[in-house]
């Protein structure tokens, strides 16, 4: 087992150093990091000192760039036109000023995201990244900083759940390495779409993928959870998983904790699909966990725990790449970690107090609500592509509603977890008191 772990980790490192493993989406378009040294208001140009070159360059500002976005002497990211690399479309401060209000916001989302991911194996990123962007963090920095908090959080969560005997390390590592391969393809698809249809086309593709996958998979998970709840809370492996386990194509692997013997030829595609989704919708776990449950045949407890190993592997590889691009705002990463390391451990221990199918209830609910959120964003992207007409105020309102629903998904998930966890803890305490009373008698 140790040998396998070392080999797989070596593969992760090799792949991540040799290619693009921008899990969570690669930085889109053309952008440069650097400092604006001069601003010529009349000519509408800036003198820009890029990080990666000695010489300063003159860039022209697009009409859409507002004057108050230009800050001299501070590190900024300038987005350039894909065809004309001297035309600036957007200027964003690379490192936002942190005040108590935005720090508390990051800590709160970090805690709730940690709680949910400790419990269902993933989650949090879908609110954290847009949440940070709403504070003024550039998109690439938000994705990078979120990614860098993902692997330490997943590591702590996986360690906890390993102690509870819920993690199938072999399954997690095989899935993780296959997921990294999936990320490569996911990014290629994203790049192709971005080059063909630009930012709006890319956003539309992501939203449609989000809605289609979340409604189908999330709906199935939720229905299954309800069925189990009605029949007394006993989980059974799916018919598909049982059929797959019977197919004997070497190499076969024995997954001890998951209590499954299965061909690698079925395990790798599930991991691959997880990576593909991580690069597309930034939440691979929405495919990884159901895949492990319904295709491989692991219980929801083992699947959600092993997903943390997948998240660690992918997050680690992704963070190396983002660090190489110099886009991680470590302050944001560490702020999220300050709260999420509490949340993830609380979520992990919460799994020991609840019935197994509750993991499916939480996961299914979150997926379906997130699907609604992404659905609300689709009209704006359709309008951006010129396929429908939409008032700017309506588009703005829909985007705000989309974010609010997304935040609600995370909060509802956290509420279900905490409510059931507290109930489980109370019942446990009452049980202990009864046993103690019995001993005294």
């Amino acid at each position: 087992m140790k040998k396998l772990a070392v080999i797989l980790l070596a593969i992760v490192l090799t792949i991540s150093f040799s290619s693009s493993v921008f899990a969570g989406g690669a930085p889109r378009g053309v952008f440069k990091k650097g400092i604006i040294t001069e601003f010529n208001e009349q000519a509408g140009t800036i003198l820009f000192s890029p990080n990666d070159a000695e010489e300063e360059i003159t860039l022209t500002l697009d009409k859409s760039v507002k004057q108050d976005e230009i800050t001299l002497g501070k590190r900024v990211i300038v987005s350039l036109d894909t065809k004309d690399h001297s035309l600036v479309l957007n200027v964003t401060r690379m490192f936002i000023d942190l005040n108590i209000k935005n720090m508390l916001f990051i800590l709160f989302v970090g805690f709730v995201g940690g709680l949910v991911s400790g419990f269902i194996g993933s989650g949090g990123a879908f609110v954290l990244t847009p949440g940070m962007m709403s504070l003024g963090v550039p998109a690439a920095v938000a994705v990078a900083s979120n990614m860098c908090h993902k692997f330490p959080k997943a590591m702590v969560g996986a360690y906890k759940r390993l102690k509870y005997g819920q993690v199938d390390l072999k399954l997690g590592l095989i899935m993780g390495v296959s997921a990294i391969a999936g990320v490569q393809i996911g990014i290629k698809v994203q790049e192709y779409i971005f080059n063909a249809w630009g930012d709006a086309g890319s956003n539309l593709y992501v939203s449609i993928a989000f809605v289609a996958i979340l409604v189908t998979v999330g709906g199935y998970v939720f229905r299954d959870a309800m069925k189990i709840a009605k029949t007394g809370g006993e989980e059974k492996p799916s018919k598909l998983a049982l059929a797959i386990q019977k197919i004997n194509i070497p190499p076969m692997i024995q997954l001890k904790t998951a209590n499954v013997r299965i061909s690698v030829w079925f395990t790798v595609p599930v991991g691959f699909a997880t990576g593909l989704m991580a690069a597309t919708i930034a939440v691979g776990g929405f495919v990884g966990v159901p895949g492990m449950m319904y295709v491989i045949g692991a219980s929801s407890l083992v699947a959600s725990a092993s997903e943390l190993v997948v998240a660690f592997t992918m997050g680690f590889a992704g963070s190396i790449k983002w660090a190489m691009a110099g886009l991680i705002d470590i302050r944001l990463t560490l702020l999220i970690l300050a709260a999420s390391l509490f949340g993830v451990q609380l979520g992990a221990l919460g799994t020991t107090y609840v019935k197994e199918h509750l993991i499916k209830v939480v996961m299914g609910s979150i997926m379906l609500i997130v699907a609604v959120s992404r659905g609300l964003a689709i009209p704006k992207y359709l309008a951006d592509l010129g396929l429908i007409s939409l008032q700017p105020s309506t588009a703005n309102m829909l985007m705000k509603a989309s974010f609010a629903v997304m935040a609600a998904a995370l909060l509802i998930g956290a509420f279900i977890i905490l409510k059931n966890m507290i109930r489980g803890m109370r019942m446990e305490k009452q049980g202990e008191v009864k046993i103690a009373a019995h001993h005294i008698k």
Partner: protein
Amino acid sequence: MKEKKKKPYVTAIIMGIISIVSYILIFNNQETVTDLTTKSGYFVALPIVAAFYFSFIHGAFASSMLSVLGIEAKKKK
């Protein structure tokens, strides 16, 4: 009756102090920290090392803090 497990007060205090001091150092030197962690070359390792460091220190603090508060996993029967 089973003996009650001792709560990890000492670990919580030590790890808590190390963690808080580390956070104060980072946030009091934001400019230097963001500058160093976004440089190229060997500096690329810095954000990864920092994330690992905090996951051990702050992770251990969070774990012992939860235990001190009496929030622990259900014991297997």
